[in-house]
């Protein structure tokens, strides 16, 4: 089945590809067929194992010139078209490839450095992001500035040609594996909230940086707190204008918000849900009673719509048209549908759904219970659903601001 995904017949992307894109698709499939070996398919070793595989996967992608296809060719990318990105993402998702260790840095930090960085910064950081020689983590959120990023408190005091940073960051994934961090710090405390913030790159080996893992409600520790105490960073590591980091960060955040479509994930979850329902079905009602069907069909409607919206956005991208209002709505809906499906799976599975991994009789060997817990984060990460609604209300509908 896995083999079929990478070297089977041409996939139906819903559209005909031009010759160049077909060649690209063939290249991606060929790459996956050879590079995605048993080592890369393993699921062992917990988070450390995952990160190690992600590092190796990053290396293999880069060796094939596929680490950051959306980046301009001059910086090691492919200047890929929207269709190529669709093809790439579809193939990667179908093959269930591991996550490259610098995925976030490639989606967020790289484009930021390309847009705002100095030539030196570009030369110094971009190649090592691509290769995975540097592993990056993000230091934006703070304990008292979650969704309200502009109220961050980490201070950066200018001392000659260095900045001395003190503060605390939270929700930093991979901090214990990363050797670099990109940070937002308040460098001008007297300026209004969103002014006076700088976007800074720091070596994780700098004295004064301490990482403490945060255990999530799932029991896993995939995030960290990062404590910074008098951490000295040369001013050459500021990206964009000093005190002008808010605008720099917003270009990164907009990547995060629109980001990669998570359509594949909700399609997969819908299939699992239908499969779960089918297990308690009867010949007359193969997916269960009408009340269950009602829920499933509502989810299916949302998933199909989100597929259409993703395809439309890709088509719009072809013509250089920025994605329509649906894109910001798609992020909100995807999170909520994802979470709702995980919640409904618990009800469908009943008592067996409440059993954790390893318990005899646990539904999907504990995946139902795990997903129920895990998906609580879907409406919290990258701006809570409440913040998303505010942004859509204000930016898209033009309603007056309330905060």
């Amino acid at each position: 089945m896995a083999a079929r995904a990478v070297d089977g017949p041409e996939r139906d992307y819903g559209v005909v590809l031009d010759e160049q894109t077909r060649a690209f698709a063939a290249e991606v499939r060929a790459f996956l067929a050879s590079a995605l070996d048993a080592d890369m398919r393993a699921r062992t070793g917990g988070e450390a194992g995952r990160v190690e595989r992600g590092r190796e996967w990053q290396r293999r992608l880069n060796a094939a010139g596929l680490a950051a296809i959306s980046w301009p060719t001059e910086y090691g990318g492919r200047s890929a078209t929207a269709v190529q990105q669709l093809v790439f993402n579809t193939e990667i998702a179908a093959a269930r490839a591991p996550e490259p260790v610098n995925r976030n840095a490639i989606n967020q930090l790289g484009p930021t450095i390309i847009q705002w960085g100095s030539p030196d910064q570009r030369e110094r950081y971009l190649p090592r992001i691509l290769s995975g020689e540097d592993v990056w983590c993000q230091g934006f959120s703070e304990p008292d500035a979650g969704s309200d990023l502009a109220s961050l408190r980490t201070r950066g005091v200018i001392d000659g040609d260095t900045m001395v940073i003190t503060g605390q960051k939270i929700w930093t994934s991979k901090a214990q594996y990363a050797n670099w961090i990109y940070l937002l710090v308040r460098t001008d405390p007297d300026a209004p909230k969103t002014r006076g913030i700088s976007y800074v790159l720091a070596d994780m080996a700098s004295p004064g940086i301490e990482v403490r893992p945060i255990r999530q409600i799932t029991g896993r520790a995939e995030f960290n707190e990062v404590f910074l105490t008098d951490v000295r960073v040369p001013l050459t590591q500021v990206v964009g204008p000093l005190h002008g980091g808010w605008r720099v960060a917003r270009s990164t955040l907009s990547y995060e918000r629109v980001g990669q479509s998570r359509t594949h994930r909700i399609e997969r979850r819908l299939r699992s849900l239908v499969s779960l329902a089918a297990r308690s079905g009867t010949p007359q009602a193969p997916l269960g009673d009408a009340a269950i069907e009602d829920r499933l069909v509502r989810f299916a409607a949302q998933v199909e719509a989100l597929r259409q919206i993703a395809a439309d956005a890709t088509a719009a991208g072809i013509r250089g048209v920025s994605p329509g209002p649906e894109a910001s709505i798609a992020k909100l809906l995807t999170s909520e549908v994802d979470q709702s499906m995980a919640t409904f799976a618990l009800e469908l599975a009943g008592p067996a759904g409440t059993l954790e991994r390893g318990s005899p009789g646990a539904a999907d060997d504990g995946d139902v219970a795990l997903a129920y817990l895990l998906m609580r984060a879907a409406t919290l990460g990258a701006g809570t659903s409440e913040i998303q609604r505010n942004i859509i209300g204000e930016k898209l509908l033009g309603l007056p601001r309330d905060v």
Partner: protein
Amino acid sequence: MAAAGPTFEELADRAAELAQLRASADAVLARAWSASAARDLLDTAGPAYEPALWTTVVELGWPEVMVDADAGGGGAGVRELCVLSEACGYAAAGLPLAATAAAMWAEGGCADGIAVVLPQPGQLAAGAVSGSWPAVAYAQVAARLLVLGDDAGTPVLCAVSASAPGVRRTPVVPIDHNPAANVEFDGAPCTLLAEGEEAVRRHREAVRRMMLGEIAELVGVAAAANAAAVDYAGTRVAFGKPIGTFQAVKHRLVDQRADIEVGRALVARAADAVDRARPDAAAIASLAAFWALDRLVHVPEGAVQVFGGIGYTWEHQAHVHLRRAARLAMSLGGRAAHRGVAAGWLHGLLAGERA
């Protein structure tokens, strides 16, 4: 399979074309009509129907949009009909566009006058059709009614002239005041359009096209209701602030907008599937109908809530959208039927995956 689809470039061009079509439809309707005009129609003693507006869209060829170009029609698909229908919904233009377009598609050629497609079959005997159909929208002003009959075991698709003997139309008042009627045929003479499997297929496909056009209209109605509420929320002040600053209002309008976007995407996806005769066309169309009943119909209700007391007055336009949405949604064939089709498809996908 991939070879059957368009390229992304073609898709992008088509999206631009459809946007262009919508813009021109909006421009025409904005000159000819308004929600306020639709509101005024509710004050008349008769049904809420403006023949001059119908004439306008007939002159533009909208009802013929799905008829082959060879036969003098627009040569377009249900996707284009849906764009025009959504524009009508948005402009509060209560017209039998989807029904007439679907009927002409089934007739395979252009014809004068309003036509409707009766979804439930009738009985045929000696070339005459009998049966009864409650609350058929726009039946009072229809010139032709298409019906699928059973003639001694052979399915037959035929057209009945509204002025034929044996046709009785009893006017009723639906909540949107459209010129609906309970329709009865008592041995009404009819014109044969198709026989056998082809009759069944063409009737089924016509009903599906009509339904998608009506869901598109409902998307437009919901969008108009929400847009009006958004405008109001930006200006109406309570407690010293525009009410749109309150998250209870703001987030309601956002969620409704999301419901509308999902509805529009489903209509587009279903219309494309029908136009390309994809095997999942019926299922996606049913997903769209399900969503219409599950969410779209409630958007104008939420808009009334945002308007508050003023939206509850007869003089205000909010209830035009409320009434139109309720009537359109209830005409789609019911939640249970569409849920059944969609659930069967979902189950089939799973079985296909296992196979």
